[in-house]
């Protein structure tokens, strides 16, 4: 062979620089959204084959739909009663696994009123495809 490899080294350096950029950006944003506000209201989410139930901080329970207020912060405490599920509100990019025996948390603050879909994103059996619920954000 006997040729010089300088082009390849530059190329690898550029690739690494791009990756550092991607990693730093991702780290930064994750850091930003990870931090749960102090005043976030806690909502217990329980997944079960094949429906969702919710419990508000004041003890009111809802099945298959949940009513939230616009511009409030909410922290979901997600767990499951049988198999793994995944709590997902695609519109607000909320996504967290519901694992039996564990409580996972994710927080968000709806900044838009209306009706949105909640779906299960982790394969959980026969009616996984229809494990849906409604998120209703009310303007106050």
């Amino acid at each position: 062979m006997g040729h010089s490899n300088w082009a390849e080294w530059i190329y690898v350096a550029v690739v690494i620089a791009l990756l550092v950029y991607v990693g730093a950006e991702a780290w930064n944003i994750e850091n930003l959204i990870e931090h749960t506000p102090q005043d976030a209201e806690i909502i217990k989410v329980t997944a079960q084959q094949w429906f969702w139930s919710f419990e508000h901080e004041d003890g009111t329970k809802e099945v298959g739909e949940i009513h939230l207020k616009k511009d409030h912060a909410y922290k979901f405490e997600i767990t499951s009663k049988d198999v793994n599920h995944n709590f997902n509100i695609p519109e607000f990019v909320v996504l967290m696994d519901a694992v039996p025996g564990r409580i996972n948390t994710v927080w968000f603050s709806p900044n838009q009123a209306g009706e949105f879909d909640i779906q299960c994103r982790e394969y959980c059996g026969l009616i996984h495809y229809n494990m849906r619920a409604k998120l209703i954000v009310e303007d106050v």
Partner: protein
Amino acid sequence: MSEHDETIWRTSSGRVGKMMAILGGTVIVGAIIFFALGDYWISELSPAGKTFAGITDEEDAPTVTQTGEDIPITLDFIESKDFRTLAFNALPGEPGNNPTINANVGDRIIFNILNAGKSFHAFGVTSNEEGFGGILSGTDVAAANNPLKPGDGGTSEFIPGEPGTYYYICTVPGHREMGMVGTIIVE
């Protein structure tokens, strides 16, 4: 080393044909076995699954002297359009929703079950007030892991041995909580 003066036929029509016959034959035989037994392969729940669902083997209903009276009941699984409310025969608020059955000890309740919905259902009678376990033997039609497909149906019987309140439910997990539950009052 790689010089050769005459063509050596490595493959021929006959040999390819033979190979295809072997492969095709294997696949066809396999497919016949699979489709003949297709439902057998998914017919049971694992022991851990049975424990989780609260299914035990011994729960035979006590033998009772039958009164000779038959109570035929027809139950259809139905669903609301958004699938969030489930019920027997009619949606909540409509007449005939989850009919309550009154019977005496020793009566024979004959269930005639039809899945009139779009998802999966299975039928059973339990004395548990919550959950989908404790199904009394002989009362079940299909099971949560091998449920009734849309349009399928079946029959089963329940001869109560003791007075009390029983529940007929959909044994698919969650469906009872979503409304597929009715009461059987035995005196």
